């Protein structure tokens, strides 16, 4: 249906061009070269004006000669000159060339006169050029032309745009052209029917441009009247007090109807100050004027006596607001179009809302996977082994700095990432093992002191990093193939880095579950954490297992550090940013269980994004409320979401 309408429209728009084309073809000897056509309109081109240049441009456009766009550009750029006989030349870099072949002719510039089109003519030339650019063989130029049209929708572009659609070879650009034509029809179409149809067609369009077209059609203007005129295309009636403040409403009416203004306390005071006589104003001592009520009463008495201009009292304001109606009307006079646009806008908004919800969900998942990555090492050392490691955040930082150092040595970002991941694991694994051997081993029976000792290590490591790398943030650049974002529709987008982090988080989950549940090491780890002495009597070396487990947890923290460094800046304090959150994640999820950590990270990530969505301007508040929620949550489920039962729970 719409297509046929469009075709009719095209025919209608196209016919004047077709008519003029025949005219000029007759005048210009049918075909011939560019110079011939130019000569046919010699005076129009040599001394162009906005009102008369049309036929010349039409003749050039319809000639179909390959040199026409280039000539138009030169004409626009004042590069066209002509000699005494009226022949045209193109002059570039003071070289006189032929208009068609562009070969230097060796003529003297002094003998020629320049064609100087004025602003109006240049605009007309530019419009004619859009026509050519829209069917230019170079896709980049076609795209540029479309961008230019989209930036500034103008009814005159409809014709050329429509004409270029059929010949468009690129499917994406063709779609875009059809869309743009639809925008133009919706806003400037000839008949109401066309416009309503075009507006309805916008329902599936979530792009910013499409939504802008709708809101432009629905643009309103506030008006004031004692009764609403019958013919107005009414958008809504504004109620003072609910839709806008009574003072603002009164101010609008006062401006229109020339009523006395509302005085602010400061203005009232300034006005009173002009009336001071011998320390008194209207027989009131100025020292008595220290409340707002007395000041207003004094002013009103002076105003009644004609000494001060009248002001709007609360009574005036109420009476005026009762007498007038404030309403908004659409700038668009046709109610059918605005109704259709409103219906379409509602449909679009609900789709945009759904997309935003999906986008929020994606954000929440990616935040959850970052928390999960940060916490998963802790899920092993704290969750499985029960060791509080306050330096866990510093292991994350060490991993990130390892990535940074590798990038300084290996310039290729992809290769350096491949090198950095295992290297970060090795570095933090070693650090973890060293820490376990030197410090934690001695404190297994004193958990609170483990907390303090590891905290000491944390301060030392943080300061050490600051001494080595300085206080400024170091970049960890991601390889090119991780740049950009996956655009699902106009609203939903997710950057590839976040997807990569999500995938990495899943990989770790799988890897960890495999190690703990399916390997000899995992069996021994679980045995040692449940009952070290029994495990020892079965021939397991608990010391070695604890060392290995702690190293594993620390190593994973290092890899997480590389991933987090790609997404955030690498600083010596980055670990401290994650440590409390990570402990929360493990505690909320349930200690001693990898699935619990996943649940905890999901809950915290979703919660934080949800609160941020409710109050988008304030991420600090979101974090505050989230922590408060977690504190309360732990009160009611002290063992976390996934609580271990039976003997595994230990206690």
């Amino acid at each position, binding site marked *: 249906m719409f297509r046929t309408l469009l075709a009719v429209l095209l025919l209608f728009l196209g016919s004047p061009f077709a008519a003029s084309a025949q005219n000029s073809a007759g005048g210009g000897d049918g075909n011939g070269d560019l110079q011939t056509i130019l000569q046919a309109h010699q005076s129009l081109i040599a001394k162009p004006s906005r009102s008369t240049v049309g036929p010349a441009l039409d003749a050039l456009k319809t000639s179909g000669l390959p040199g026409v766009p280039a000539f138009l550009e030169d004409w626009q750029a004042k590069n066209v000159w002509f000699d005494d006989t009226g022949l045209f030349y193109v002059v570039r870099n003071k070289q006189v060339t032929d208009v068609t072949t562009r070969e230097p002719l060796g003529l003297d510039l002094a003998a020629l006169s320049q064609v100087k089109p004025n602003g109006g003519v240049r605009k007309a030339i530019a419009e004619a050029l859009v026509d050519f650019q829209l069917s230019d063989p170079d896709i980049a130029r076609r795209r540029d032309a479309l961008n230019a049209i989209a930036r500034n929708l103008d009814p005159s572009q409809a014709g050329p745009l429509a004409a270029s659609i059929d010949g468009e070879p690129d499917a994406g650009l063709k779609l875009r052209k059809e869309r743009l034509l639809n925008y133009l029809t919706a806003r400037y179409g000839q008949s109401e029917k066309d416009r309503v149809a075009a507006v309805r067609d916008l329902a599936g369009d979530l792009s910013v441009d499409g939504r802008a077209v709708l809101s432009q059609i629905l643009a309103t203007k506030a008006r004031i009247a004692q009764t609403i005129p019958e013919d107005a295309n009414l958008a809504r009636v504004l109620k003072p007090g609910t839709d806008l403040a009574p003072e603002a409403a009164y101010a609008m009416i006062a401006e229109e109807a020339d009523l006395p203004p509302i005085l602010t306390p400061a203005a009232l005071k300034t006005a009173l100050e002009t009336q001071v006589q011998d320390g008194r104003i209207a027989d009131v001592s100025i020292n008595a004027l220290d409340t707002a009520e007395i000041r207003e009463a004094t002013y009103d008495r002076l105003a009644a006596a004609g000494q001060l201009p009248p002001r709007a009292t609360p009574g005036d304001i109420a009476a005026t607001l009762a007498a007038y109606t404030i309403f908004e009307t659409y700038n668009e006079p046709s109610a059918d179009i605005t109704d259709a646009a409103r219906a379409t806008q509602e449909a679009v908004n609900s789709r945009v809302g759904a997309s935003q919800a999906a986008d929020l969900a994606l954000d929440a998942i990616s935040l959850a996977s970052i928390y999960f990555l940060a916490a998963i090492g802790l899920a092993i050392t704290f969750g499985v082994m029960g060791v509080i490691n306050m330096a866990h955040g510093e292991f994350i930082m060490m991993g990130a700095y390892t990535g940074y150092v590798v990038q300084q040595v290996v310039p290729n970002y992809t290769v350096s990432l491949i090198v950095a991941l295992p290297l970060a694991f090795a570095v933090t694994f070693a650090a973890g093992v060293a820490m376990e051997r030197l410090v934690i081993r001695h404190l297994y029976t004193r958990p609170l002191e483990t907390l303090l000792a590891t*905290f000491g290590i944390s301060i030392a490591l943080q300061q*050490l990093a600051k001494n080595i790398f300085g206080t400024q943030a170091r970049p960890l650049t991601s390889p090119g193939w991780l740049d950009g974002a996956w655009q699902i529709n106009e609203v939903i987008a997710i950057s590839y880095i976040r997807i990569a982090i999500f995938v990495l988080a899943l990989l770790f989950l799988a890897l960890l579950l495999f190690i703990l549940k399916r390997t000899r090491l995992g069996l021994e780890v679980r045995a040692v954490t449940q009952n070290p002495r029994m495990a020892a009597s079965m021939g397991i070396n608990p010391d070695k297992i604890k060392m290995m487990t702690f190293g594993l947890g620390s190593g994973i923290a290092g890899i997480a550090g590389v991933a987090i460094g790609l997404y955030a800046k690498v600083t010596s304090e980055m670990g401290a940013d994650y440590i409390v959150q990570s402990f929360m994640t493990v505690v909320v999820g349930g200690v001693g269980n990898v699935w619990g950590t996943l649940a905890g990270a999901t809950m915290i990530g979703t919660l934080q994004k949800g609160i941020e969505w409710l109050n988008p301007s304030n991420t600090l508040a979101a974090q505050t409320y989230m922590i408060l929620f977690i504190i309360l949550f732990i*009160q009611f489920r002290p063992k976390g979401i996934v609580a271990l039962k039976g003997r595994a729970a230990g206690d």
Partner: protein
Amino acid sequence: MNRSFLARNPSILWFLALLGLFTLVVTVLSEGLGVGMISTSFVKTLGKTLCLCLIAVAMDVVWGYCGILSLGHFAFFGIGGYAIGMWLMYARTETIVERSLANQVIPPTPQEVSDAIASQIFGVVGASELPSLWAFAHSLPLQLLMVVLVPGLLALVFGWLAFRSRVTGVYLSILTQAMTLALSLYLFQNDSGLRGNNGLSGLQNIPGMGDVPQGVLSVWFLWASAMALAVGYVLFAFVTSGKMGSVIRAIRDDEARVRFLGYHVESYKLFVFTLTAIVAGIAGALYYPQAGIVNPAEIAPIASIYLAVWVAIGGRGRLYGAVMGTVFVTLLSSWFTGGGAPDIDLGFYRIQWTDWWLVLLGLAFVAVTLFAPQGLGGLVNKLKGARAKEAKA
């Protein structure tokens, strides 16, 4: 009773005597009231250190005696500072505003005065109305009540929730740390009603005492801090002695067994937690007028952990240990970070202590936890042991 309490704890008398002597010596040497050998800023540092000693003693009671490693007591300290800071800032701004409005032709309305005060105080965060949080800021007695009430109530509610659900050990530590983090993040917001990360400033100027020079004020604050420390010390010594002290220490050693013996463990813990929080608030209220500024960074979780560091280095489970640890670490820290310590030249690398002090502190802390769990207080034991041996011989 009181005699026997003091007689059983001779260390209290020793401590009070030393504290009194210290205050006297500082007063005599001070710039404001004495011969001027100690600068005003150092008197302030000493006064602040006394306040830190007070909160460290509170921390020692809650951790060293009762076994609750709270990483939230510095939050209570900060709340006390904010509570007193609100009055200091409001009252000072009020006098300034009244003075500037006095020049106007018509006397100001109360609304104009409070608007002017609000825009003075909150101009930096782009607000111009006094938040409801400041409803009592005009009154010193009410704000002083807040110094006690707000930390006390917060600790009561938080402690009741936590102890009731039997959150213990490291879980409780992490929970208190989360509370501190939440509070500091909340205060960092500009619309928290407490000037966001600007904090409250100009607190060293006491309203109504504009004529008193800072040098004299600093000594007065030193006296007040010493007094508070003395009272707090005796109070905590009393709480931790006698039958109640025994129950508290028993809870630290084996909570379940105390419960089985019929004691209501939660009440004891809640009492200790709340009391120490209140004392922390008072310490903060004395500290920040000497520091001059309180901002959310002061409350960050790390501050509470440093508190634990002082107590651990001084020696847990003995009140004078907390004082020793605090004095030792804070003064050493300001010596190292203030550039007082000489750099060490290793030939290939020059160790500058401003950069390396935290590394040293961190490692020293690890060493103390590993090898000297009794901290500096352990030295006292050794001395006593040596003397006892001599007496025997």
